[in-house]
């Protein structure tokens, strides 16, 4: 029983990174992906901030959905309530970090306001609800909650991986000499598209590997 759980968690985690990568496969969070990927240290900082915010946002919104929205048939309020909660959370994290962990605030602080209502963070919370609320009915809340959190962590790491990979691609693009009409954002979008296509090759890979191991 335990090993099947670990296999499920591992499948969720790695397929969120490779197969369902939020940036390169589901095309969410493109704004920071293109905006902050110019420098390696800022893309790493942004990626780390996204991981933290995604996990905490899912940790709060998932029970909110199950015990408040679903319980009282208020599903249509999902978007507005999630945005509200995530915005409050990010502000709270920022204030707390500034007070208690100034070093971390120095490295993550500037990116936190950027992801307050980022579609990537909102997407993780909404899709986690979509994918795992059925499990609540079948296996109980605990397991569904754990799977949703693993999914959020995987999505965050996937974002970080996409940022770091694209930062490397971009440093080459900056040094290249494209035709005048392609300079700047156009060539960046073209290279983002090619990076994204390479991630399509991971489809079905993770399930097979995990099944082979367990």
């Amino acid at each position, binding site marked *: 029983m335990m090993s099947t759980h670990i296999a499920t968690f591992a499948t969720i985690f790695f397929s969120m990174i490779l197969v369902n990568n939020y940036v390169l496969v589901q095309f969410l969070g493109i704004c920071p992906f293109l905006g902050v990927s110019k420098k390696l240290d800022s893309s790493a900082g942004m990626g780390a901030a996204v991981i933290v915010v995604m996990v905490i946002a899912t940790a709060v919104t998932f029970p909110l959905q199950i015990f*408040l929205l679903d319980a009282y*048939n208020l599903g249509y309020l999902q978007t507005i309530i999630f945005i*509200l*909660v995530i915005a409050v959370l990010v*502000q*709270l994290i920022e*204030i707390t970090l500034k*007070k208690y962990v*100034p070093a971390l605030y120095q490295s993550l602080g500037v990116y936190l306001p950027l992801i307050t209502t980022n579609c990537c963070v909102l997407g993780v919370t909404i899709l986690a609800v979509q994918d795992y609320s059925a499990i609540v009915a079948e296996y109980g809340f605990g397991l569904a909650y754990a799977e949703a959190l693993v999914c959020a962590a995987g999505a965050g790491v996937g974002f970080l991986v996409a940022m770091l990979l694209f930062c490397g691609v971009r440093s080459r693009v900056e*040094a290249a000499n494209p035709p005048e009409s392609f300079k700047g954002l156009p060539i960046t979008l073209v290279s983002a598209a090619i990076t994204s296509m390479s991630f399509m090759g991971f489809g079905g890979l993770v399930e097979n590997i995990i099944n082979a191991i367990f």
Partner: protein
Amino acid sequence: MNPIVFAIVVVVVLGLAGGVILVLASKFMAVYEDPRIAQITECLAGANCGGCGYAGCADYAKAIVENGAPTFKCAPGGDKAADAINTIMGNATDDRPSLRATVICAGGENCGKRFDYQGIQTCAAAASIAGGPSACAYGCLGLGDCTRACKFDAIHVINGVAVVDRKKCTGCTACTVVCPRHVIQMKPIAPQPAVKCSNKDKGALVNKTCKVGCIACGLCVRNCPNQAIFLKDNVAVIDYTKCNGCGTCVSKCPKKAIQWVEGVPRSIDAPVPEHEVLKTRV
């Protein structure tokens, strides 16, 4: 309860709860920040050029208040910003230097080519291929990395060599950092002669590569009335603490390698314009 009213109540309660939490958090976890930091940030130029050596205007303002950093480091803000900061900090006067970027090369079209470079059109790329395309291993490559680094449109490539527009230059040092040949240096703001050559080769070799290269003949050293010039590594060097800007060296230099800092580089064949010969310190 009416489901619409209930929905409104839920959203309002959640919103209010979030607001109350944030207000309490910002009260109890407030971090005291010196109000002078915000005031000083206002005084600075806001270009975030990094010329002061800090990670942006706000960071520099913080360094002034908390670590007592020098108040005159904001080059784009100039004297105005430094005076305003001194007022806020309650400082008396400071000994601020006023420096502007100067290209220590007048080569360009006066300098020979070793090969025809067709690669990526940046100095950094050209300099890394076989020692660079120009015959001189020390001079300006003229592909404009400095032009792209300059946020104030103050440095341009003219006749194959970078030239600083001293009226626009704010002294932020951004161009000196990107130049792969390190031929851009900071020089005093007053009109002074500058040795516009960085070539450390022996004179005979310089003669073959560049028309306006310093051959270290020493004419300027012997003729300077203030003993402000000396030779180092086969290049003449001007000591600006002694130079009074008389311009003797500009007219004496047989290779026209010493020029007024703000002048446009000339070919050796062109005569020195009269207004540049007679220029005295203002």
